[in-house]
Structures are given as structure tokens and as C-alpha cells.
């Protein structure tokens, strides 16, 4: 099979590029247990920089060098200005990286526009051998990437710097005590990793076009390779890259290019399920080598029960007040949309509150619900009740499956797994055109049914229906937390190994939480379909999932937090008339700021501010708070970012 030879050659060339991308991920992870989500976007920026310079007449070599430097500088800045502050908590670093990805994607779009571009090859032509064509550009990529990789291995094995990097990787505390400046090693890893991503980007750009929003997809590819090789294990990378590169090329060559994402996400999910430590590593990377910083002591202010309830109840009614107060139906439908968001936030809270997992798969779960309902309505003509009957069990099953994968991996892989799940579902809905109508979207032919005398044809009745469901989800979450199962799950969240040691089935608990979340999500998804009447794959993509996470982090999980935060989140961009790209930029900045500045979320902060003000005005009635002594009664308001700030170990 001569075509096979061609695929193998192309696959090996692709491997050498993936090696360059993955090595940065694995270097940084090895030293810090951090996966930098924005890493893929560094590569995208390098492509644009190189293209701009080449278009301006700069020779390829200098353009490539400039792109490498640009990527290195961005990596350096991101470490200095952002990741440096989350070094004691890689989970926070993950979220900051997510924010940075959103910011850099929208910035790239603003600067370079939305078209996919390629980098003109350094050399043209090639030589045929049998039926196989060896393009000189591919040969060049293979040789240079191979040399750079070999140089890196030599540097790690033979030089003082390499020894220091390895020492800092193996045991950062001991390394510091033999005189290694561990902080500087982290900087070195960031800069080197980002620069290599830049080089990988330029090469990748000569093989395939790249667009402003490709960062998320590229980091997942790089992550798939790094994971195959055993995260943090540089020596496994070469084999992993070849395996992945050839696999991908074969999938694209014998299948279709659209199947490649399934290959990527499939690799991630399967490796995590079967061999979380990578294919070539006997021992999975242990978190114990990571410097155990003393856990930040949660200093959540406590509120009297009345104060909390009052605050809660007032906030709960806010959507109704706003809905009735805004005059236009345009704004009213946005308030309705915000409540639909809030249902998803509550669904996420079922998982988050009980297991501590901040999942970026909410959009994926919602899509399963909405699309299954849409498909049976469009293709089988089945109505609302059938939709619920089909969508809920299906989404519960999808949630359970996701929970199963999640329960197999530790805190640091979680976000990536859930992101891969989201991307997988989006890709499915895009690809299965016969069922989903792909990009064009599915238009619902059905209407919400009448219940007795109630009809749901106008905006107001739809709003109250959705609002009621949101309240049910919120109260359900509260009740659920105090059930036996809920308590078990909280045990898992507080201390997983302790929970395990007293006989709780941790894995099963996580599967259960995700299944439950799936049920809530499905109901919300079906309501979304029946009130919005049209769904497109991007309605539920990773960015949507990230929005849900941001709303949860912003609003906290207090009763009305998600409702209020959703409203702010949906209405504000509309009132400011931001286009989607500006919105994405804003989300990214918000996410970063929340993690760095606002540990407990916005609404809890408001309540705290309110009660602090009250205690100042009425000191006699609040002796405990007035003296600055925390009250002992009542439980503290906990917010996601607070937990995120605690070390997950």
C-alpha cells in the first residue's frame, strides 16, 4: 500500500510538530502540576506573527525566529503576571489559564480577524519515491523539529541547567535546599515551553491553516500527546508523539478530516480511563512531589441565619422584579434566558457542591438533553413529554459516563477531561448533520403543552414556568445536600482519601453526582429548546460551559447566587452592546480577576459587605461581629473559588 507510506510519512512529520507542542505542556506540568490552557493559543499567535512578517517581506528564518521569541515572551509574561500567583494551587492556575485562553483568542480575532491562515512554506517542491511524495517543507520540519527535540533531551540530561530542572521536578523542596532557584526553573520551563510551542506553531502553520479560535483545540491535541506520554514525563513524549501523529494522519487519511477531533478527545478519555499515568510510565505522576503549601485557612465570615435567609429571599425574587420592570420583550426574553442559564448553574452546583469538581462539561450535558429532544421532535414528531422522557435518561447516562471518567482521575486532569467531553459533544452535533442539521441548527416544530388551564405560548407564562423550575432546582440542591447520599458526597469533597478510608464508595458517589446533574441539565436543556425554539451546536460549546463556571464562581452557590449572577451576566453585555468577541474577552478578564482578587464570589461578597455595614451601624445587636470575633453558629458561606483556592490533593 503506497498510500500507507504517504500517510506514515505525513504522520511522522506531524508527530515532530506535536512533540514541540507537548513538550512545553509536560515541562511546565512536571515542575508545577499546572496545565496551561493558553499554551495552544501561544502557538496560534506565533502563526499570525510569522505570517505577518513573511507578508511584509521578512525571510522565513527571521520571521520564524521572531514568532518563537514572541511566543516565549508571552509565556514569560503570563508566568510573571498570572501563574506566579497560583503556584501553590495548580487548580487555580488551570482556571487562570482558561481565562487567559479566552482573552488571547478574542485578542487574536481583533488583531488578525477570523480567517484561518497558513504560513507559506520555507521551501517548496519535493521528491517522489514510488507513490510517496516527500515535500521538502515536510522534510525540513521533520529535521529541524527532530534536532530541536534532541537538543532539548541533551540539555536535560547533560547540563547543569538540565540537572536543576530535573531536581526541581523530582523534589522542589529538596532542590531549593541544594541551591536550585525553583522559581527561576519554573520561569525557564514556561519560557522554553512557550518558545517551543511558537516553533511548533510556525511549522504547524506550514502544514495546516490555523484560526484565531483554534487555541482550545490545539491545547487538547497537545494535552492528548502529553497524556499519552505520561504527563510530566519528557522521555515518554517522543513515542507518544509518533503514536498520536500517525494515528491522527491515518484517521484523516482513511476516514475524514472531521473525525480527527473524535480521535483527539477519544485518546484523552480512553487514556485517562485505562492508563491515567500514560502508556509508557509505570507509575503515574504523583502529586506528592508537589510542594505541600500550607492550606489557606478559610476565613469565611459567618452570618446570622436570618440575615442570610433575608438576603437570599430578596435576591430570589429579583428576576421577577426585573422581568416585570423591563418594558421591552427583547429584554424580557433575556431575563428568561438568564434563568435558563441559572438552571444549568444549579445543575453544575450539584456536582461542584458535592464533589468539589468544577466541570466544564455543562454545555455538553445540556446539548445531549436539548438535541435529543429536538431530534425526536423534528424527525419523529414527538412532543414535550416524550422529549422529557427521552432526554432525561439519555443525559443521565451521559452524565454517569462522564462521572465515571472523572472519578478515574485526579484534580488536575479534571478540567481537561470535562473540556474534552464538551468539545466531543459539540463536534458530534456538528458532524451528525443528518440528525442535527449541523451549523444551520435545529428548528423546533413543537410547542410547550397546556397543563390544565395553563398555556405557555406567551413570554410571561414561559418565564414563570422556567423560573419555577429554576427554584425547584435550587431548593432541590439544598434538600439533596442534607440527604444521606448528599452527605456522603460532601465527605468525598472534604477529604477524598478519608472518605475512602471510612468505606465510602468515592467513584460511585461521583458518578451519582454527575448523573443527577445530568437530570437537571436535561430538563433545563429541553426548556431551552422549547422556549428558544432553535438550537445550534455553538449554543452549548466549551465557551458556554466556561460561562456557566464563571457564573457559579461569581454568584457562589448560595440560594439565589446563580440567579442573580446569571442575570448580570446575560443582561450586562447586552446593555453594554458588546459583540460576542468582546464578551469573550470580558469573560476571560473576569475569570482571571475573580481567581486573583475575589476569593469568595461576588454575591457572597455583597452579603458580607451588607452585614459588615449593618454591624457597624447597629453594633449592639451584633456583638460578635462588632468585636471582630467570628460567630460560632451557622455554617460559613462557601464559594467555589474559595475551594478552588484550597489545594486539591
Amino acid at each position, binding site marked *: 500500500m503506497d498510500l500507507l507510506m504517504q500517510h506514515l510519512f505525513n504522520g511522522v512529520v506531524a508527530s515532530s510538530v506535536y512533540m514541540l507542542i507537548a513538550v512545553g505542556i509536560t515541562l511546565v506540568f512536571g515542575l508545577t502540576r499546572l496545565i496551561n490552557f493558553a499554551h495552544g493559543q501561544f502557538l496560534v499567535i506565533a502563526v499570525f506573527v510569522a505570517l505577518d512578517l513573511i507578508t511584509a517581506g521578512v525571510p522565513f528564518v527571521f520571521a520564524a525566529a521572531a514568532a518563537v521569541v514572541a511566543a516565549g515572551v508571552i509565556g514569560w509574561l503570563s508566568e510573571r503576571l498570572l501563574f506566579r500567583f497560583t503556584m501553590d494551587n495548580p487548580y487555580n492556575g488551570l482556571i487562570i489559564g482558561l481565562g487567559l485562553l479566552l482573552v488571547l483568542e478574542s485578542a487574536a480575532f481583533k488583531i488578525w480577524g477570523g480567517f484561518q491562515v497558513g504560513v507559506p512554506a520555507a521551501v517548496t517542491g519535493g521528491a517522489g519515491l514510488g507513490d510517496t511524495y516527500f515535500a521538502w517543507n515536510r522534510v525540513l520540519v521533520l529535521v529541524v523539529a527532530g534536532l530541536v527535540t534532541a537538543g532539548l533531551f541533551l540539555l536535560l540530561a547533560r547540563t*547543569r541547567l538540565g*540537572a*536543576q530542572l*530535573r*531536581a526541581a521536578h*523530582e*523534589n522542589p*523542596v*529538596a*532542590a*531549593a*535546599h*541544594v*541551591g*536550585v*532557584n*525553583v*522559581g527561576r526553573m519554573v520561569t525557564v520551563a514556561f519560557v522554553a515551553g512557550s518558545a517551543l510551542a511558537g516553533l511548533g506553531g510556525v511549522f504547524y502553520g506550514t502544514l495546516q491553516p490555523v484560526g484565531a479560535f483554534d487555541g482550545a483545540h490545539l491545547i487538547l491535541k497537545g494535552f492528548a500527546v502529553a497524556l499519552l506520554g505520561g504527563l510530566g514525563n519528557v522521555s515518554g513524549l517522543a513515542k507518544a508523539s509518533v503514536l498520536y501523529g500517525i494515528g491522527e494522519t491515518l484517521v484523516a487519511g482513511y476516514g475524514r478530516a472531521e473525525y480527527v477531533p473524535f480521535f483527539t478527545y477519544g485518546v484523552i478519555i480512553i487514556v485517562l480511563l485505562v492508563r491515567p499515568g500514560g502508556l509508557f510510565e509505570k507509575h503515574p505522576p504523583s502529586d506528592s512531589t508537589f510542594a505541600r503549601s*500550607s*492550606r*489557606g*485557612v478559610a476565613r469565611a465570615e459567618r452570618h446570622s441565619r436570618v440575615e442570610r435567609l433575608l438576603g437570599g429571599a430578596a435576591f430570589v425574587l429579583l428576576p421577577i422584579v426585573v422581568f416585570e420592570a423591563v418594558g421591552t420583550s427583547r429584554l424580557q426574553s433575556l431575563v428568561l434566558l438568564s434563568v435558563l442559564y441559572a438552571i444549568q448553574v444549579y445543575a453544575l452546583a450539584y456536582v461542584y457542591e458535592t464533589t468539589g469538581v468544577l466541570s466544564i462539561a455543562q454545555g455538553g450535558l445540556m446539548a445531549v438533553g436539548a438535541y435529543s429532544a429536538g431530534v425526536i421532535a423534528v424527525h419523529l414528531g414527538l412532543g414535550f413529554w416524550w422529549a422529557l422522557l427521552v432526554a432525561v435518561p439519555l443525559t443521565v447516562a451521559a452524565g454517569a459516563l462522564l462521572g465515571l471518567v472523572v472519578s478515574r482521575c485526579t484534580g488536575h486532569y479534571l478540567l481537561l477531561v470535562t473540556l474534552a467531553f464538551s468539545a466531543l459533544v459539540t463536534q458530534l452535533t456538528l458532524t451528525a448533520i443528518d440528525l442535527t442539521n449541523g451549523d444551520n441548527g435545529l428548528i423546533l416544530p413543537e410547542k410547550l403543552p397546556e397543563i390544565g388551564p395553563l398555556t405557555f405560548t406567551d413570554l410571561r407564562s414561559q418565564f414563570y414556568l422556567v423560573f419555577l423550575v429554576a427554584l425547584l432546582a435550587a431548593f432541590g440542591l439544598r434538600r439533596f445536600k442534607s440527604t444521606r447520599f448528599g452527605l456522603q458526597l460532601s465527605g468525598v469533597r472534604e477529604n477524598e482519601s478519608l472518605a475512602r478510608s471510612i468505606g465510602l464508595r468515592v467513584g460511585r458517589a461521583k458518578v451519582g453526582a454527575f448523573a443527577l446533574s445530568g437530570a437537571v441539565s436535561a430538563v433545563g436543556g429541553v426548556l431551552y429548546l422549547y422556549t428558544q425554539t432553535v438550537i445550534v451546536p455553538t449554543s452549548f460549546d466549551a465557551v458556554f460551559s466556561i460561562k456557566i463556571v464563571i457564573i457559579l464562581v461569581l454568584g457562589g452557590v448560595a440560594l439565589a447566587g446563580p440567579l442573580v449572577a446569571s442575570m448580570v451576566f446575560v443582561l450586562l453585555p447586552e446593555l453594554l452592546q458588546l459583540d460576542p468577541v468582546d464578551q469573550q474577552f470580558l469573560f476571560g478578564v473576569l475569570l482571571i480577576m475573580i481567581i486573583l482578587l475575589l476569593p469568595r464570589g461576588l454575591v457572597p461578597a455583597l452579603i458580607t459587605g451588607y452585614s459588615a455595614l449593618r454591624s457597624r451601624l447597629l453594633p449592639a445587636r451584633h456583638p460578635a461581629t462588632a468585636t471582630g470575633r467570628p460567630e460560632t453558629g451557622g455554617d460559613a458561606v462557601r464559594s467555589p473559588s474559595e475551594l478552588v483556592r484550597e489545594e486539591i490533593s
Partner: protein
Amino acid sequence: MSTAELEISGLTAGYGGVVAVKDVSLSVPAGTTVALLGANGAGKSTILRSVSGQVKPRSGDIRLNGESLVGLRPDQTLARGVAHVLEGRQVFAQMTVVENLRLGSVRRGRDTHEETIALLLDHFPVLAEKARQPAGQLSGGQQQMLAISRALMSRPRMLLLDEPSLGLAPVMLPTIVELIRWAQTTFGAAVLIVEQYSALALQVSTWGYVLRNGRLVASAPSAELAEGDAINTAYFGVDP
């Protein structure tokens, strides 16, 4: 200026809500070995960590030959002459013995580097034999030798040893005692040795301090401590 190499005054340090060490003052005169004794959890390691910069003191001062070490990172205190051998022999298990030793001198010029390695390997034939093997393959005692040797690679003025006998077979103890004495005479370093069980530490030291619940409860010549009951007091909490 005192003649003390290391002078700790009024040190208070801890972790989060825990205060592990309260108002401790002690000194190690140049060229001598001083023992710091106490039960598990007394705060001994915290004192060493404060000196080497792994833990930031809440208050108090730490001076090496008159120069304050407060606020420095471990790699910076090492550059000033403090070498800290961590509790539990933290060798780099995946790196070879020689690589471990080389790392010990990342802060010093290459000139003295091979010379010191030769000196150490010469003195420890066991390490020389296994020079190219991963350190993880050494026995516990050999790993402790390696950890101390690695600290000596930086030619420290002040050597901090955290429970060097912990987890070692009793037959290894004389070797460790000999190693500490040799290090002291060869490199001229002052030594602060932390131990739970007093025998070894009092044997190599001239002066001893006893720590209980983060506070110093005794300070006397080692010989006196070896006879007296200050140690019992420290361990069992019987006040004299």
C-alpha cells in the same frame, strides 16, 4: 558582633493557624557542634526550616556571622553558607549519585567542584562504587551519607542536620557520628544537629538545647544533659 556563627533570637514561627516555635533563642559558636533535642512535634524541624528560609519567621531574628537571614529563600541562604540536610534523606532518587553531588554545588564555581567530589568519594568508597547508579537504589544509610555529602558540596559554614539517624539501622549510627566529625574537621563548618533520641546528638555535640512544645526548656553542656534529667523533663513533661 559575637563569635557565634549562628545566632537565633526570639524566633517565633508556624504554619497557618499553628504556632510551632515560640520565642526561641539559641546560638551555635563557630566551628562547634550543637544539639537540639525534643520529642516528635516539638518544633525542631521548624527551627531549621526558619534558618534555611523554607519557613518565614513570624518574628525574631536569625543571623549568620552577624548577617540577617530573615526573608531569604533556601537557595539564597545556601549561597550565604547554610546547608540544610532535610529530615528523611531527600535525595533525588531518579538521578545518579554523582548528579546528586554535582547539584549540591550549583551555587559555587566549577573550580572547587570536581575537587570536592573527589574528596567526598575518596572518603566514602561505598558512594564511589555506586557513583553512576540512581540514588534511589542506595540503602537508607548510604542515602543519608549522600544527602550529607551533597550538602557539603556547597562547602557550608553552617550545616543543619535534621534527624540524620532517623530510620537507620543501629549499626549505621557510628558511621554517621564519624561522618559528622569528619565533616566538621575537614570543612570547618559549625553544625546544628536535631535529634529525637539524644544519644547520638549528645555524643557529637558540645552544647545541647532541649525543646518542648515549641519552647526551649533546657540549655546546657552536652555532657551535663547526658547525665541530668532535663531530657526526661522535656519528653515526659515533668517539671523540675
